[in-house]
């Protein structure tokens, strides 16, 4: 009998039930979409912030870097890292968080006879096939995304353009170079001719340099198999007190703190792991990028959390409201049931069962729709899918059930308290 009544309610009142289910679905989809986006926003924004370039630099332990601004006399013997050690960066504990890296080797060359031009050997879009099966294109094409290519194109290493270089805008203007020209580079050990693949405008000191494939710079500098420094772009967790303490001296941590620090992707723990992997190097965080990144990530996340809370409250109140309205609408029906002798308990059981069934159907539809909305946001804003977080399913389920009950129970109780005669009379 109970089931027949419920079935009857759904068949006869399908329009009203549909409306309730629709509202619950809307609320649930809102909650699903916002929760999914909120939980994934940190990763997504982190990826976007990679446009600021590397957040870790690795240099040889005894590097004398004084040659930077002025040619200071009494330069110490330059220190190098080995090119063969480069792959080890992708073997550290947090290897998956390392999204990009490139080696750099600087040397002075003569360009078309003009001496004292800075030549930087590096990777452009170097293809790496890692032993783990991962494929990765690493190099300055992605690490220097803010460069404007004024003429020509990015040097394409994968097209085996071995004898090509990219020239900074300042040098190109000074020497009258254009994309497609052929230049002669004379280094400490030999001479190479190269095609100018492109002219870039970096809006900084880099405009005064020529960028060449790594092996060309090594040949010109007589430094086969050596590199000067490495820039690493890693996805990191914003620093907290533990990370700051560890960055100063990892030895000061207790064993459990050390483990927690080592197994969290703080910029300091990634630096530490790189230093473990590559002998005689110093890996340090580029504070301009690393610190700011953490700050912006935190703010974005907090913003999304608050917007999510608002939408959750909104959808919860919306559902409660509608359920209350729809229960009140049935006052006459409930009065009639009471008048023909039904127990209060069986009436509320009936109404609640109907509402819970509707809520489950609506919630399931809403979850699907909400996940769709999350994908719309992911694809149109970040150009990639929002990861499905399993945690969202129980949260939305509990929210929908609780909220439907919260909306219906007080209304049912207040209606049952009324005298059936009065209710039927229409008061």
């Amino acid at each position, binding site marked *: 009998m109970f089931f027949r009544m419920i079935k009857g309610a759904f068949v006869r009142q399908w329009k009203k039930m549909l409306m309730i289910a629709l509202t619950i679905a809307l609320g649930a989809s809102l909650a699903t979409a916002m929760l999914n986006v909120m939980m994934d926003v940190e990763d997504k924004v982190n990826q*976007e912030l990679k446009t*600021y370039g590397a957040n870790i630099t690795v240099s040889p332990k005894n590097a004398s870097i004084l040659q930077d601004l002025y040619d200071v006399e009494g330069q110490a013997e330059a220190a190098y890292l080995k090119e063969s050690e480069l792959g080890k960066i992708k073997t550290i504990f947090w290897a998956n968080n390392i999204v990009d890296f490139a080696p750099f080797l600087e040397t002075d060359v003569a360009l078309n006879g003009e001496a004292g031009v800075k030549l930087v050997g590096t990777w452009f879009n170097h293809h790496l096939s890692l032993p783990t099966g991962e494929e990765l294109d690493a190099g300055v094409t992605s690490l220097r*995304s803010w460069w404007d290519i004024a003429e020509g194109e990015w040097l394409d290493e994968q097209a085996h353009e071995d004898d090509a270089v990219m020239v900074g805008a300042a040098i190109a203007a000074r020497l009258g170079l254009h994309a497609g020209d052929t230049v002669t580079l004379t280094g400490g050990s030999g001479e190479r001719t190269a095609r100018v693949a492109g002219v870039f405008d970096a809006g900084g000191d880099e405009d005064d340099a020529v960028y060449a494939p790594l092996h060309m710079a090594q040949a010109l500098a007589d430094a086969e198999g050596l590199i000067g420094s490495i820039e690493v772009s890693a996805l990191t967790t914003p620093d907290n007190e533990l990370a700051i303490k560890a960055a100063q001296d990892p030895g000061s941590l207790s064993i459990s703190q050390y483990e927690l620090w080592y197994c969290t992707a703080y910029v300091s723990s990634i630096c530490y792991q790189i230093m473990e992997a590559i002998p005689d190097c110093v890996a340090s965080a580029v504070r301009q990028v690393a610190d700011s990144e953490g700050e912006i990530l935190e703010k974005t996340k907090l913003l999304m959390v608050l*917007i999510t809370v608002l*939408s959750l409250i909104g959808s919860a109140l919306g559902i409660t409201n509608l359920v209350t309205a729809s229960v*009140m609408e049935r006052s006459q029906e409930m009065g009639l049931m009471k008048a023909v002798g039904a127990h209060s308990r069986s009436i509320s059981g009936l109404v609640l069962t109907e509402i819970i069934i509707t809520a489950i159907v609506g919630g399931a539809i809403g979850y699907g729709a909400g996940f769709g909305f999350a994908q719309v*946001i992911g694809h149109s804003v970040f150009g990639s899918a929002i990861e499905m977080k399993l945690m969202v399913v129980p949260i939305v389920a509990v929210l929908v059930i609780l909220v439907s009950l919260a909306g219906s129970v007080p209304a049912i109780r207040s209606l049952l308290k009324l005298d059936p005669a009065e209710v039927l009379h229409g008061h």
Partner: protein
Amino acid sequence: MKRQQMYFRMISASLLRRRSRMLVALLAVTIGATILSGLVTIYYDVPRQMGAQFRSYGANMIFTAAADSDGLTTDQVERASALIDAEDLVGLAPYRYESVRINERPVIAAGTDMAGAQSTSPYWFVTGEWPSGDGEALIGKAVSNTYRLGPGDTLTAQYVPEHAADAEEVEPIERTFKVTGVLDTGGSEEEYLFISLADMAALTGVDDRLDVAELSVSGGQPKLEEYAEAIAAGVPEVTPRLVKRVTQSENTVLKKLQALVLLVTVIVLLLTMICVSTTMMAVVSERRKEIGLRKALGASDNSIIMEFMGEGLLLGGIGGLLGSGLGFAFAQMVSRNVFNSSITFQPLLLPATIVVSILVTGLACLSPVRSATDVDPALVLKGE
């Protein structure tokens, strides 16, 4: 006159008598209006607030001397920076670089304004204290390691004037500094010695000469380009340059964040508005019998629709007003918690929220009322 009085009495009586139902409807409208005004306020304010956060990436504009002169003066920098709105200028740090010797080994000394450097490069991490006066110095981590100097130590810097090469005996100028802090940036600044501009002038004997000035200016790339053009035209001695790495990346990331907030706002609003409409529909369709009764008593369809619209208008107006206030309070709370700054009230948003609330309420009422008036009153009253 009488007619209008009656109309108002009917609307207000209907709202008052059916208190609990109307409360439900009002709550629905208020939620919708709160979300509308709160999210739109945030959407308008996010670029400004987020832009301020991006200033933690440091200087995005640099002044250098024009190609034919040998340096900038403080006056030129001041005249150029005066062309930037005071509220957009987050920080300005002038720099003058000279090569000096400490213990006979060369180090680059940078003369700057410490407060300016602190505001243009908020990511500088100083162990110890920032120098607060003349005779005090901040040293880079690399310098600290080379000379084994730390906060509290003193160092003696020696400057050999430029003409020393051909002159027979030029006395090098010597000054002693107290190290107050060690600078950690992960960049080339770690190899420098930072002193005040006055100390630099005393050390070199040359006054009022700057190499570059770093500026941190809030605003997007187009605004910065405008400023750069204005400065290049207004103060020809100064060449302004944008730090592409910072401006371009900020542009990319900020655009994405804005798009994110926009899309979220649109989806949340859309869903909320539909939610409000369904609730209104539920509340109104409950009154089919009332509509039928009125029709049976001889009320015209138009007057019934007008009455419901009037109720909707009142509900929408009150809900919109409440929602505007609550929404602003929410936006203010977000701004305080996330960005530590308050939000400006958008006066236009108040009428907009009220109008949207009224429209949504009105439209939501319309279809159930129409369907009730279309049907024969006898059928409606019978309950079919």
